């Protein structure tokens, strides 16, 4: 169907179900990375469902906030979750075609991620605790470093395929041959690197570091607001990984809405997610953090590689 007119009812249902499923699976993803960390520390570690228990408990706790926390402080948890759900609805995770294209082609996804980051930082500053202020400034600077790489990589792929609609891109990359292999591979590597940082994983751990690191802007939240923010962060990790999978590893997706195809596609998707989170966990736990001055040195070459991909695109390789 052409991306402009309203999709049929069944597609909308799939999109909503897909987004809610992702929201439901987010604590599983963060719980899984906590288990990997525990195993790397050679200790028994919590169960995979620990994050569910944490969020369930936090939802029922009293939400205390600093006296002079502004309106943004209270609004941010909802903004975080909603933006991620919007991206989730548009992602062609299990179907070849994006189930709800209106809410998210490439450009809107990048901007939704930017809104997520902007509100997250704003909440930190608005809760005017020094602590959260640092986390926000950290988040924004990370944004400046990472976003150009992400945009460049995805735009390169969009130019290769000729459209910015996620569904078409993953369909094109899955079925017909890659007539510009080198560009896509380079863009894939750079996009993986950028999304690894976006996931907030060590060694580029940023504001929403999870264990006893100060959790940046999340410091001032408590009770149900904290639960929403944790959900938002977990959902962001899941959505970001699926954005990468949808574009660069699109194989094994259902072509039509039949139950059998959907189920097989979901299983393949879960296996892919498992592998990606396992690798991310291993990398995260065996590196010391990169120094501030070194941050430029490590992230900037990724930007150069992205430019290289653009050049290969122009040259047509």
């Amino acid at each position, binding site marked *: 169907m052409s991306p402009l007119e309203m999709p049929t009812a069944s597609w909308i249902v799939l999109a909503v179900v897909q987004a809610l499923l992702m929201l439901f699976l987010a604590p599983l993803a963060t719980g899984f990375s*906590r288990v990997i960390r*525990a195993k790397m*520390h*050679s*200790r*028994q*570690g*919590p169960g995979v469902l*620990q994050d569910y*228990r*944490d969020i*369930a*408990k936090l939802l*029922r*706790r*009293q*939400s*205390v906030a600093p006296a002079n926390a502004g309106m943004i402080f209270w609004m941010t948890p909802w903004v975080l979750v909603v933006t991620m759900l919007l991206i989730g609805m548009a992602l062609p995770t299990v179907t070849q075609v994006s189930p709800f294209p209106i809410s998210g082609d490439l450009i809107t996804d990048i901007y939704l991620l930017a809104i997520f980051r902007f509100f997250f930082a704003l909440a930190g500053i608005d809760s005017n605790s020094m*602590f959260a202020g640092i986390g926000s400034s950290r988040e924004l600077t990370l944004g400046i470093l990472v976003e150009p790489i992400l945009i460049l990589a995805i735009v390169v792929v969009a130019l290769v395929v000729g459209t910015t609609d996620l569904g078409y891109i993953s369909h094109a990359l899955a079925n017909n041959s890659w007539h510009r292999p080198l560009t896509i591979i380079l863009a894939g590597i750079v996009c993986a690197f950028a999304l690894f940082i976006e996931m907030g994983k060590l060694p580029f751990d940023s504001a929403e570091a999870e*264990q*006893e*690191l*100060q*959790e940046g802007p999340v*410091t*001032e*939240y*408590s*009770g149900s607001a*904290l639960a929403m923010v944790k959900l938002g962060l977990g959902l962001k990790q899941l959505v970001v990984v699926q954005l990468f999978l949808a574009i660069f590893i699109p194989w094994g997706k259902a072509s039509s809405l039949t139950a059998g195809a959907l189920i097989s596609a979901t299983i393949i998707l879960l296996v892919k997610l498992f592998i990606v989170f396992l690798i991310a966990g291993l990398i995260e736990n065996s590196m010391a953090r990169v120094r501030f001055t070194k941050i430029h040195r490590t992230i900037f070459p990724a930007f150069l590689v992205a430019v290289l991909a653009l050049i290969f695109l122009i040259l047509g390789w």
Partner: protein
Amino acid sequence: MKGIKQLVGTAHTQTVPVVLPPNSQKLKDALLKEIRRSAYVYRVDCGGCNACEIEIFAATTPIFDTERFGIKIVASPRHADILLYTGSVTRAMRAPALRAYEAAPDPKIVISYGACGCDGGIFHDLYCVWGGTDKIVPVDVYIPGCPPTPAATIYGFAVALGLLDQKLKSKQHQPEAQKAQLKHTNIPLDIKV
């Protein structure tokens, strides 16, 4: 004889602890049911010799690993369900300790950790110490020990969360039963010192 029960009677040696709202006990029991499998602990150091902090640290390390019970040490009182007070409250640390108590969301469980926390330990009657956490905040669970071993810490958390019931009961001995036996009665006299 060191039998002086309360040491110096004058009022100025005591601080007055924070008073609990009336229905707080009901709230706490409700809280206990919720945080049974996922408790966030915040450590408040009121001026101890930091042996207790190291033992709490040791409780989170691979060998004793409190995270397997869902107990996680968080970095801000905002997130905390359980406040873990160590150290006999020194004068300089009383104000920050009270600030931490107010910052934690209600209802909260307060655990007093180590001999210094429970009743002031070896510094209980010093001029620069208020002696024990229950002098400044209402305490729910006491974990004695100097310092309590990580196993005792885990046991303390289990008692706090209601997973295990406490073993120690106050005891009233009945000494009048019989006379004290002499020791080593069968040793011949001359070699007995």
